[in-house]
């Protein structure tokens, strides 16, 4: 019997597909965001408010993942942008292959691709979907210890949206402790407090989004210019 060293990530096949998606979207200047949060954290409502505020002329598309039903897709379709439901039929996360398959047939140029992962703070963290950034949505009804209990996602997320802040007067949730816990796990994490119900924080969120969409497009254009030189 002999031992051979491998030293590869187990999910390297997923990573390979994700790299292909990243290259394709990057070339087209599409910003891709992967929203991860517990079931009921308010991911769909936040995306609804986002779509409502985006111009219908912006080239935006949404992929939404759920274990069963297309109810989220039906909610998101009302805003005039293309939406596809990914029903995982049991899987607790989206993987790059599912995203690749569902991107087929969509316009070559998109400014923004919003991916709503299956409600879960653990499994989606392991699967690269070719996104530019992961965004973790944490609602105040979940408790301020979440970043410490689920460090993986808080470490990988670029932005934390502290959601449902309109409920702060009614729940024993200490926002300062929540922020501190998130920063203990990931000192550079950006934090936006928001409420889809009252609209609080949505201007800040839309500003973050607009800046990222813009810088992604500029990067793609610059690269294309260099390539044509």
């Amino acid at each position, binding site marked *: *019997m002999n031992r051979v060293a*491998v030293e590869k990530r*187990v999910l390297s*096949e*997923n990573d390979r597909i994700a790299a292909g998606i990243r290259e394709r979207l990057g070339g087209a200047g599409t910003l891709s965001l992967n929203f991860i949060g517990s079931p009921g954290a308010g991911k769909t409502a936040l995306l609804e408010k986002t779509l409502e505020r985006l111009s219908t002329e912006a080239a935006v598309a949404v992929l939404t993942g759920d274990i069963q039903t297309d109810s989220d897709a039906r909610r998101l379709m009302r805003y005039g942008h293309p939406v596809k439901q990914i029903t995982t039929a049991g899987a607790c996360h989206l993987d790059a292959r599912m995203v690749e398959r569902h991107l087929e047939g969509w316009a070559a140029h998109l400014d923004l691709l919003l991916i709503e992962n299956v409600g879960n703070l653990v*499994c989606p963290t392991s699967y690269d979907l070719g996104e530019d950034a992961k965004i973790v949505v944490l609602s105040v009804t979940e408790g301020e210890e979440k970043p410490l209990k689920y460090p*993986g996602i808080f470490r990988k997320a670029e932005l934390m949206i502290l959601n449902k802040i309109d409920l702060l007067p009614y729940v024993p949730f200490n926002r300062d402790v929540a922020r501190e816990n998130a920063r203990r796990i990931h000192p550079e994490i950006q934090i936006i407090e928001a409420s889809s119900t009252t609209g609080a924080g949505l201007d800040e969120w839309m500003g973050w989004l607009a800046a990222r969409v813009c810088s992604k497009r500029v990067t793609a254009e610059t690269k294309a210019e260099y390539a044509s030189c």
Partner: protein
Amino acid sequence: MHEMGIACSVIEAVQKEMERYPRKRVVKVGLRIGALAGVDAESLRFCFEAITKGSSPARRGLPLELDIELCASDELEMAHLELEDEEEAA
């Protein structure tokens, strides 16, 4: 929670790697599981056994054992494979 999917990915990764060793058979897979990888070792072992301990002849080429090492990263890696010659197996 997603260990069954991970177990399938381990097997896929092993099968891919084994294309490099056509006359060998894999008996053990060495995995390195990071504390932040979000993978529970015992649950993964359970799922892995559920898949590989089947009696179907198509499953015979699958590794029999997991050798798990825990570490302090957020990665899940296949560290090594233990192989034997096919004649040895027969």
